[in-house]
């Protein structure tokens, strides 16, 4: 029995490594990653959450930096409503030293991040999710104990000026989910920094 499970896991892992990551409607896997406070965080710890705003982001990327204040606001608003932000830095710090764990701690303190800022040290989480750039958002909704991907994409449609954004994709998506509706649009694109992958 154990053998079968391991075999299944191996097959599943191999399959997910080859796939292009999650699409809207897929069930997302939980992860357990190191936070800037030295503790490990997993989504299973949030028993009361209705879902999550998972954001792949980092220190160095100007697009990520431009969105830091907006990410703080999203968390302050939506964590009270059951949809906390969980930020994940997917970058290899050997390639981009500004994205090291110690610099993440500094940034989280400087910007008073109200949300966990986790390091994807093995770079497996971003690959499983299929993130390609920073920032890259995945909204997960708890449905029958599964975490279902309900939105993938940008935070809003103006990286330079949140006040000038005419579409606030993440806000609208959460409002939809709260009312039991599916987000529309559920997939958007934005310019971002490539994820810095460890050289093998």
């Amino acid at each position, binding site marked *: 029995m154990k053998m079968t499970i391991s075999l299944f896991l191996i097959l599943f892992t191999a399959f997910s490594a080859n796939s292009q990551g999650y699409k809207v409607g897929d069930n997302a896997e939980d992860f357990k990653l190191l936070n800037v406070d030295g503790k490990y965080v997993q989504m299973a710890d949030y028993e009361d959450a209705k879902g999550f705003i998972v954001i792949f982001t980092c220190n160095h*990327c*100007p697009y990520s930096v*431009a969105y830091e204040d907006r990410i703080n606001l999203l968390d302050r608003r939506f964590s009270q409503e059951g949809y906390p932000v969980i930020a994940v830095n997917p970058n290899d710090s050997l390639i*981009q030293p500004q994205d090291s764990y110690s610099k993440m701690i500094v940034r989280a303190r400087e910007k008073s991040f109200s949300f966990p800022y986790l390091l994807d040290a093995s770079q497996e989480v971003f690959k499983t999710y299929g993130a*390609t*750039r920073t920032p890259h958002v995945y909204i997960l909704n708890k449905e029958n104990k599964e975490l279902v991907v309900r939105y993938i*994409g*940008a935070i809003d*449609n*103006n*990286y*330079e*000026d949140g006040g*000038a954004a*005419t*579409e606030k994709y993440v806000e609208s998506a959460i409002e939809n989910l709260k009312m039991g509706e599916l987000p529309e*649009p559920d997939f*958007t*694109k*934005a*310019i*971002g*920094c*490539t*994820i810095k992958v460890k050289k093998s």
Partner: protein
Amino acid sequence: MKIGFLSVVLLFVATFALSVSAQIKVVNFKNFKPLLEKNNDTTYVINFWATWCAPCVKELPDFESINQQFKDKKFKMLLVSLDFRKSFETRLIPFVEQNKLKAEVLLLHEPDGNSWIDLVDTNWSGAIPATLIYNKDFRVFHEGGYTYQELNSIITNNLKP
């Protein structure tokens, strides 16, 4: 005398800065789009980059070499910067000057990426660097970096006589 000299220097610097900024156009997507759809014998290399994007900056010297190598052929290179509009004067122009870029540089200012990324190529997620190489009979889009050898072979194999 000192002031006179300083004025000359300032004038010189100002003229130089103006001449560089005059070469770099700021375009929106509507004005940029025709450059993705030329239907002629020229092979276009359109590289999306930004001064803050380390992998983009790293491959620029290879793009510059390629541009020098093919500039007398039916060939046109565009380095399309996605820098923020507010860093046009403070980052982009100084970068182009310092690195003596010869290929044509544009600043594409269109912050709503979702409205235009698919119109460049539906396979593009929006990460940079990304490069489109095309002529009327050929089109290849690549998200990620290119080596000199890769660029050279794609262009050599598709260049029109």
